[in-house]
C-alpha cells in the first residue's frame, strides 16, 4: 500500500470486513441488480434500456453530487432542493422572452445558486442547524416561485439550446453527458483538491480543521452554494428538455438525492464520502425504479424497496464500524 522504505506492513487496511464492505458493496449491489434485471426481463440488458437507467436519474443525480459535499462537510442535508430546482426551471423559461434562452438559462442557474448561497450563509456563517435553515429557505423560495408565476405552467420557446439539451452525442443523450462531466469534475474536486480536503476535514472535526487554518465557514457555506448551483442546473435542464415548467417540478428530489448519497455510503456525520460512490448510489436508485416497472411491480413499491436498501446498507456499515471500534 505504502512505498515506505521501512518495511513492517503489518496491517492492511483493505482487509478488514468493514473496509471490504464499503469498497465492494456498491459494485456488488449493481451487479446483483443487473443480474436480477436480466432474469426478470429480456429487454433489460439492451443498450437502450441501460441508457434509460442512467438517463432516468441524470438530472436529479446532479443534485446528489452536490449533496455529497453537503454531507461530507457535516452539513447533514439540504432540504431546499425542490425550491431551488423550481426557481432554476421557472426563471429559465420565464425570462426567455425577455433576455433570450441562453441568458435566461444562466439567470435561472444564478438565482438557484443565490438560494444556495443564502443557505450557506445561514448554515456556514450563522451556524444554524442545516435542517431548519434549509426547511425555512425552501419554504420561502418555493412560495416565491409560485408567487412569481401565479399558477399554471411556464412554456418554453423553441430554441437551439433546448434542442441541444434534448439531443444525443455519439448515441448518448446530452443529459447523461452533462451528468458524467459534472461527476468527473467533482470527483477530483473532492478527492484531489485542497477544497475537497477542506470539506473532509471540516466534516471530520470542525474544531481541528478551524485550528489548522482551514476556512471552515467558507467550506461549509460553499457546499450549500454548490448544491444550489447544481439544483439550478437540474431545474434548467428539466425545463429545457421538458419544454415547460411548474413549481412542483423538483418535488421529492431532496429525498432522492439524500437516498442516493446515503446508499453510496457517505456518512451523515460527515468526514468521508466519494463522488464515485454517490454515482453508484444514483445508479442503484435508478435501477430500482427501472426494475420495478420492468417486472410489473406497482410503482408505489419504490419507497419500500429503496427504504429497505438504505437500512440494509447503513445498518451493515454501522455494524462494521462498531466492530472496528471495539478492536
Amino acid at each position, binding site marked *: 500500500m505504502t512505498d515506505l522504505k521501512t518495511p513492517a506492513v503489518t496491517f492492511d487496511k483493505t482487509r478488514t470486513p468493514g473496509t471490504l464492505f464499503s469498497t465492494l458493496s456498491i459494485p456488488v449491489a449493481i451487479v446483483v441488480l443487473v443480474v436480477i434485471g436480466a432474469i426478470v*426481463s429480456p*429487454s*433489460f440488458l*439492451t443498450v*437502450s*434500456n441501460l441508457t*434509460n437507467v442512467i*438517463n*432516468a436519474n441524470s*438530472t436529479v443525480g446532479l443534485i446528489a453530487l452536490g449533496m455529497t459535499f453537503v454531507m461530507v462537510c457535516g452539513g447533514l442535508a439540504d432540504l431546499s432542493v425542490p425550491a431551488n430546482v423550481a426557481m432554476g426551471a421557472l426563471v429559465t423559461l420565464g425570462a426567455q422572452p425577455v433576455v433570450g434562452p441562453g441568458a435566461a438559462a444562466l439567470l435561472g442557474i444564478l438565482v438557484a445558486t443565490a438560494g444556495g448561497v443564502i443557505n450557506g450563509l445561514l448554515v456556514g456563517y450563522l451556524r444554524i442547524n442545516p435542517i431548519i435553515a434549509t426547511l425555512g429557505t425552501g419554504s420561502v423560495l418555493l412560495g416565491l416561485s*409560485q408567487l412569481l*408565476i*401565479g*399558477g*399554471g*405552467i411556464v*412554456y418554453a420557446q423553441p430554441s437551439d439550446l433546448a434542442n441541444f439539451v*434534448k439531443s444525443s452525442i455519439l448515441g448518448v*443523450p446530452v443529459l447523461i453527458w452533462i451528468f458524467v462531466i459534472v461527476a468527473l469534475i467533482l470527483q477530483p474536486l473532492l478527492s484531489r483538491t485542497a477544497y475537497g480536503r477542506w470539506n473532509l476535514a471540516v466534516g471530520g472535526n470542525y474544531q481541528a480543521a478551524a485550528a489548522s487554518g482551514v476556512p471552515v465557514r467558507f467550506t461549509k457555506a460553499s457546499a450549500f452554494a454548490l448544491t444550489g448551483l447544481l439544483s439550478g442546473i437540474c431545474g434548467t435542464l*428539466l425545463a429545457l*428538455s*421538458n*419544454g*415547460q415548467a*411548474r*413549481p*412542483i*417540478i423538483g*418535488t421529492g428530489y431532496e429525498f432522492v438525492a439524500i437516498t442516493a448519497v446515503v446508499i453510496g455510503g457517505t456518512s451523515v456525520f460527515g468526514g468521508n464520502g466519494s463522488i464515485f460512490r454517490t454515482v453508484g448510489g444514483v445508479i442503484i436508485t435508478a435501477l430500482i*425504479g*427501472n426494475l420495478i*416497472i*420492468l417486472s*410489473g411491480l*406497482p*410503482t*408505489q413499491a419504490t419507497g419500500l424497496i429503496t427504504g429497505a436498501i438504505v437500512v440494509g446498507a447503513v445498518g451493515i456499515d454501522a455494524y462494521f464500524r462498531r466492530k472496528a471500534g471495539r478492536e
Partner: protein
Amino acid sequence: MKARRTMLVASAAAAVLFAIAGCSSTESGTPSGDAGSVEGKEICYITLANSHPYVTPANEGAQAAADAAGVKLTIVSEEFSAQTGAEQLNTCVSRGVDGILLWPADENSYLPGLLKAEQAGIPVVAIDTRAGDESMKLIQSFAGADKYDQGKISAQQMEKALEGEGGVVIIAGQAGNGTEIARTGGFMDELEATESKLEVLATVNADFDQQKALVASRDLLTKYGDQIKGVYAEDDTMAKGFLQALEESGLGFIPIVIGINGEAGAFENIKAGTQYSTILQPPFRNGELAIETLVKVMKGETVPEMVPLENTVVDSTNVDTLEPAM
C-alpha cells in the same frame, strides 16, 4: 426557567384576549340579510390549490363571479390535501359563513364537515370533482366537468380509436390523489362496464410530472415496445412525457395517446398527429359556474344536482376551432 414561565402565562393571557374580544364582538356576527339578496354575504371557497395551471384560473373565475354577485369570497387552499381541506371545511362552518364552495381532494374525507354544514344550515356546492355518494347527498349541487367522467370519456375514446383491441398503459397521477383516483376509476370502470377487450398492460404513477412520466415511459417502452397500442395519460403533461420517450426510443410506431386538460402543448401535439385527443374543460368558466350555482342556492332558488361543465373532447377534427385551457 423563570422567564419561560412568564412567557407561558403571557401566552395564556393572549388566549384570553381572543376570548374576551370574542364575547364583545359576537353580536355583530352573521345577521341574515333579506331573502333573495346575497349582497354582502360571505362565501368560503375551499380550493384545491393556489398555484396550479387548472385550479388558478378556476379560482379567478370564482372570484370574478363573486364580485359580479356582490358577495365576499374568501379563498382558502387545501394544497391537494383532503385532510387539510376537511379541517378548513370545519373552520368555514364554525365561522358561520353563508355558503361554502368545496373542491374535494378525495371522495371520502369531507363527510363529517358536510354533516356539520347541514346542521348549521350552510349550503355547500362542489366544484370540479365529485365527492363520494354519501357526501354528495349533503352537497346541493356539483358544478364541473366530472373527473370520473373524464376517465370514462377517455376509455370510450380509446375504445373507439383502437376499435376495441390491444394493449394499453395508464400513466396515472400521484397515487392517492383525488384526481388520480377519479380519472383512473372512471377509465377502469368504463372498460369493465363495456366488457372491453382492451388489455391494461401496466399502470404507473408519474405524479402529474412530465419528467417522471418520461422516465417511466422509457421503461414501459423497453418492456412492452409496440405492444403498447394505446396510452392513457391522466394529464397532458404526462402525455407529453410519454411522447418524448417515444421519440427518443426511435421505435417508430404510433400508439394512440390520450391526455386530459386541454393544455397548449397537447393542442400542438394533436395538430402534429402525435396525440390522439385531450379533454378540454375551461377552468375560468368552471369557477364562475360554481359560484353562480352557489349564489342561486343561497338565494333560495332550486338548482339541478349537477351543473355540467362541458367536457369537450379535442381531437384532430376540432383542434383548430378551440382555444387551449392553459
